[in-house]
């Protein structure tokens, strides 16, 4: 592959909790392996390129979330990218709108139906550190992030949870996030990929078309120390 094209969707609408960080982390980890990266920021009034290698979509407030879903449905390119097996990482509001329906501005909206799930409102806002045991098939180890959302997400049979929750709320207090094919949705910001480098590498491997074990290892001293600290902080808080 000559250049890895990573599309960051709708930063004008969905970019609340350092979401740009996921793009920066992916670009950093790709370039460290000698893979050229072309980051593409696509605003909600632009057409989404069909030919990119990966798609990212972030979190945001109710109003922008509803507008984003409407424009994504009209554009159609994200759904076609999912069908073509392109990796997609969706965070929080972006995650919810990949399902069949989500709740914003006091009512239900139609989602993109890329993932078999639906979201509604929870009894309270979930704010704080989140951790979990990820699905073993993903091979990314325990996950850590920060969540801040009012929604709850109910998974259908065609998706797997990204993780079983060990701290925090995630989808519903039991599971966190979802994945199917090369599409991953999660409530973790933080940003998620800075705190979960193996998840970043999994997405990169999918985009490049190799097994993650074939990516040259990087010196992850600092990300690993950060992970250790965050898990440690949860343990201390739990005692």
């Amino acid at each position, binding site marked *: 592959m000559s250049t890895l094209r990573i599309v960051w969707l709708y930063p004008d609408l969905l*970019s609340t*909790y*350092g979401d740009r*960080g996921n793009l*920066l982390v992916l670009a950093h980890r790709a370039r460290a392996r000698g893979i050229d990266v072309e980051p593409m920021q696509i605003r909600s009034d632009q057409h989404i390129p069909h030919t990119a290698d990966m798609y990212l979509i972030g979190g945001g407030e109710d*109003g922008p979330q509803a*507008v984003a879903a409407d424009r994504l449905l009209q554009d159609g390119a994200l759904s076609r990218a999912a069908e073509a097996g392109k990796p997609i990482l969706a965070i929080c509001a972006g995650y919810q709108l990949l399902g069949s329906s989500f709740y914003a501005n006091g009512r239900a909206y139609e989602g993109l139906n890329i993932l078999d799930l639906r979201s509604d409102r929870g009894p309270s806002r979930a704010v704080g550190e989140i951790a979990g045991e990820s699905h073993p098939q993903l091979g990314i180890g325990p996950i850590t992030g920060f969540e*801040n959302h009012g929604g709850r997400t109910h998974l259908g049979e065609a998706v797997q949870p990204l993780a079983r929750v060990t701290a925090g709320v995630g989808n519903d207090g039991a599971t966190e996030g979802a994945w199917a094919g090369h599409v991953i949705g999660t409530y973790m910001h933080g940003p998620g990929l800075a705190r979960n480098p193996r998840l970043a590498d999994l997405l990169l491997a999918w985009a490049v078309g190799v097994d993650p074990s074939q990516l040259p290892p990087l010196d992850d001293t*600092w990300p690993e120390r950060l992970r250790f600290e965050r898990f440690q902080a949860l343990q201390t808080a739990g005692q």
Partner: protein
Amino acid sequence: MSASLTPRAKFATTLLRTAAALSRATGRGDGSVIGGRVGLIVEPRLLELLAEGRHVVLISGTNGKTTTTRFTTAALEAIGRVATNSFGANMPTGHTTALAKAPKAEYAALECDEHYLGQLLDAARPKVVALLNLSRDQLDRAMEVTALAAKWRQTLQASAGQTTIVANADDPLIVWAASVCQRVVWVAAGQSWTADSAICPNCGAHLDRFGEFWRCTNCGLNRPSPQWSVAHQGEAVVGPDGRRYDLRLQLPGRVNRANAATALAVASLFGVDPAQAAPRLSEVASVAGRYAKVERDGRQLRLLLAKNPAGWLESFDMIDPVPPVVLSLNAREVDGFDTSWIYDVDFTSLAGRKVVVTGDRRTDLAVRLEVDGVDFIVVDDIRAAIAAVPPGPVEVVANYTAFQDIRAEFNRVN
């Protein structure tokens, strides 16, 4: 003022001062918050009673409140005594204490937390309200920023009445909130952080920007023509009549020149001649430790407080290009527990210089800098940071509690 206070209010004021003095004497801080709390329990209308008969200005916004309040106080002191919450206690308890401590001041310059603007409008009946900017801050618990602008707009519509608003023409959220008011004086105060105003707060369409001008192509919301601006490469403020007032600030950065322009605009509404006020702003050397210069072991540290992405970007604009930089990050309750906002800050301008990171969440900073390709070293605290840099000037940028920790190391420098 105090002569007209009811006996109950006088009693409440006395108790407030006693509580504040006790708090100070026992080393629990400056006593503003506890004093105000005691006073307001005895007389719930104390703030209102103490504000009565005074000429009040409220100053609010995400960044620059404390500095602009200090500048405004300095300017108003040209014509009289000024009560002010200079300790940064910017909620009603702090306002009550500030007024109680200065019974003879006919003016009051009050820094106001963004979430208390409505309450203060009702209680203090200000002559002027200055609105600086709105951007993301304390993401884990603060209201989303557009929702806050909407609340301001509603509040101002309901309560502003005879109040004159001094507002930043360069911040679309501020313009939208302030434009419901009858009397607005616009200041070109700049906007270093545009990511929270990419879309129109009024209708949700995209805002077009051409240089400093911005407008909504859908509903027509646009940048009002400012009456006050910073001009001549930052060396002067130009007022509504085109007159020029020279600025020779000790405080660094574009953002402080804009804060000065806002303070002059406010002061002129109180009848202060800006030509008389401007030199007074030059006397401000530091504000509650912000911009303070301290020395240790041959290192001259300049302390910069930056609490959110906009603040960090502004501080990178202020620092000298050569000296080492110490970055300190905490995530305690008042800072917000969520550190994700550091990914909204571009650190690449620090590449190539010596960068030392510390604070409770130094590892978060380390990961962040690595992603931006900035070399760094990680140390345990400010003492170790000082030891890690050569003698000479050092720029220190820290968020709220990290900044207070560093101030504590230097006898709570002001």
